[in-house]
């Protein structure tokens, strides 16, 4: 067998680092990492050749390109520009016979998983910036490399030892008393362990399965409910989870999006403000008596209510709670021959050991 040349774009990220760890154990692979400046020291002691975007040698024919890169800017309107920069790099390294494995996310079906889950291309649509960017990239890749064999792998919520988003962030929420779930709502976790995600990418690049355009949905622990993860972690940390009594608003239309962002003046609000005025209050009370107090009972009842409930959640909390509240399971749809590297018990054991190593807990 010939040695395969594998290029990884976004190699210094969380999944990329695990992918390299596993690839280093594989015979007959040459690993090329395409990274930004910080990649030099993050990958400096690994068995990889580091390439800078500006100095990519077109003469290297890569057998497989794995794209893990995605826009990480906080500036929402710059996502399309960042996507095109990634695409420009891919154009430099994807030759006609190169197999392309593009890593995407379950979020293309919406944070609340409200779109129909299917193993197919999805149309670009208006959504949160992160989702639009991920959708756009799937479609850009399909349009830009129509003749290449492409595997688009949509990952579930990636967790694992050292994961910043679905492990570290959850632990942090637990540790510092932030809301971790909605009271009485227990969503599907839809998680995949980073070790299994990396192993599946290697499974694909070693096999002859990447033919034409195929989609893969990887979330081997999707059936596990968030309550199990949260309770297990909380016990480990010796803290009590804080639950939200507010169900996050998940806008599905322009109207609902506006209503969750802007509080329009309502008759009730105006009444409650004016009734305390020296003159306005006097006139208003007379008017109420004249019209009949029973007509205003609703307003009076709501007088002591706090602000509309959704306004108490930050945008980040709303999105987080939407994700952990979903009753839709993002089921595994992958090649059946693939055997995950770790089962759930092993996955949790790894996380537990990391929690001790990282200083979250002492035992």
């Amino acid at each position, binding site marked *: 067998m010939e040695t395969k040349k594998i290029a990884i774009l976004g190699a210094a*990220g969380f999944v990329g680092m695990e992918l390299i760890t596993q690839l280093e154990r594989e015979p007959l692979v040459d690993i090329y990492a395409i990274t930004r*400046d910080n990649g030099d020291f993050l990958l400096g002691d690994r068995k990889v050749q580091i390439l800078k975007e500006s100095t990519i040698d077109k003469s290297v024919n890569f057998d497989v390109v794995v794209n893990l890169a995605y826009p990480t800017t906080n500036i929402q309107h710059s996502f399309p520009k960042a996507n095109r920069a990634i695409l420009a790099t891919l154009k430099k390294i994807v030759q006609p016979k190169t197999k392309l494995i593009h890593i995407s996310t379950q979020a293309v079906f919406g944070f609340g998983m409200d779109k129909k889950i299917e193993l197919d291309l999805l149309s670009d649509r208006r959504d949160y910036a992160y989702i639009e960017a991920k959708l756009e990239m799937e479609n850009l890749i399909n349009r830009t490399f129509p003749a290449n064999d492409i595997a688009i792998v949509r990952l579930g919520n990636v967790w694992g030892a050292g994961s910043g988003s679905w492990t*570290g962030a959850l632990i942090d929420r637990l540790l510092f008393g932030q809301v971790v779930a909605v009271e009485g709502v227990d969503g599907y976790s839809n998680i995949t362990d980073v070790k299994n995600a990396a192993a599946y990418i290697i499974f694909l690049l070693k096999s002859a399965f990447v033919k034409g355009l195929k989609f893969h949905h990887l979330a081997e622990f999707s059936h596990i409910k968030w309550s199990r993860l949260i309770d297990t972690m909380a016990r480990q940390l010796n803290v009590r989870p804080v639950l939200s009594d507010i169900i996050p608003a998940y806008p599905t239309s322009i109207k609902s999006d506006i209503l969750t962002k802007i509080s329009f003046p309502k008759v009730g609000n105006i009444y409650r403000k004016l009734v305390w005025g020296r003159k306005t209050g006097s006139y208003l009370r007379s008017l109420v008596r004249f019209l009949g107090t029973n007509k205003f009972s609703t307003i009076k009842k709501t007088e002591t209510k706090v602000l509309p409930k959704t306004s108490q959640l930050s945008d980040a909390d709303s999105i987080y709670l939407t994700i952990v509240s979903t009753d839709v399971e993002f089921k595994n749809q992958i090649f059946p021959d693939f055997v995950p590297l770790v089962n759930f018990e092993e996955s949790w054991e790894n996380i537990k050991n990391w929690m001790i190593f990282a200083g979250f807990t002492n035992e």
Partner: protein
Amino acid sequence: MAKNLGIIGCGAVTQNNYVKVLPMFSDIKVKAVFDLDETQAILVAKQLNSTYTSKTDLLSSCDIIIIATPPSTHRSLIEESMSKNKIIICEKPFVGTGADAGYLVNLAESSQAKLYVAHFRRLFPSVILARDIIRSKLLGEILSIEVYEGGRFSWQTKSGYVYKDPFGGVLFDTGSHTIDMALFMAGLDVSPLNISKVEIKKNKQEPSHEISASMLLNSADQEFDFRVKFSRKILLANKIRITGSNGYLDIPVGLANYIRLGTKYDSTMIYSNIKYGDLMDCFALQFKNMFYPSENSIFDAARFINLSNILERISKD
């Protein structure tokens, strides 16, 4: 009358932070900027409506000098800046050794200058809250302090000193912030500390990117374990735990207005009334303590000698 301010060093921290906050002070005029890299200096001068000058002209024309260069240059630049009534603000980390820190503090005093170190995390609401609780003796006697900060490094420096300079590793870069928070909260930044029984693990000589250390610290009236772990590669807990004879505090290392107070039985969250909308508000606030000097400022350079000694001890191994 406006005070004239000069900036030496126009790299990432100046462009990301100082450029945003200095215009908030109406009576401070950024008169001059200087950097060995002329392009960076011209860029910053334009952003601050200032002038790119020579270092000599900057030092002679400004009342306040901000030094925001790589740490290995701090000692000599502070020495050059020192003169009567001058306010010198050194970006963290201060200097590489306790001896240098002590020398510069004495020099400032003898020169009748004010020397400050910009460790703005001292103003985090969570840090002030924890400090007040520890001062109240609610925790009892301090038994141990654990400091964790780590994550994949993404700060894009202009000079690249974090990869090359012996004071550019995770210890001096991130660790100086976190250790300083711990010492400040525990009230250990004023009286001298003795360091003993030091054990250190690091991935390479400085600048190292992963480091853990433990030691015994003694002050005049207490002795306790001090443990640190820092990484630029792996996510760590990003918290400080201060354990006393009655219980413990967990304090997040990032900007927050909450901490966790616990005992062996249970724990609860405590919140501060202070809240900042943006990290830069907090960054800006530190300069109120420096541009308009007061006695016993929490940013006085003398309060960073213990920190410098600990950093030196860990880095030398």
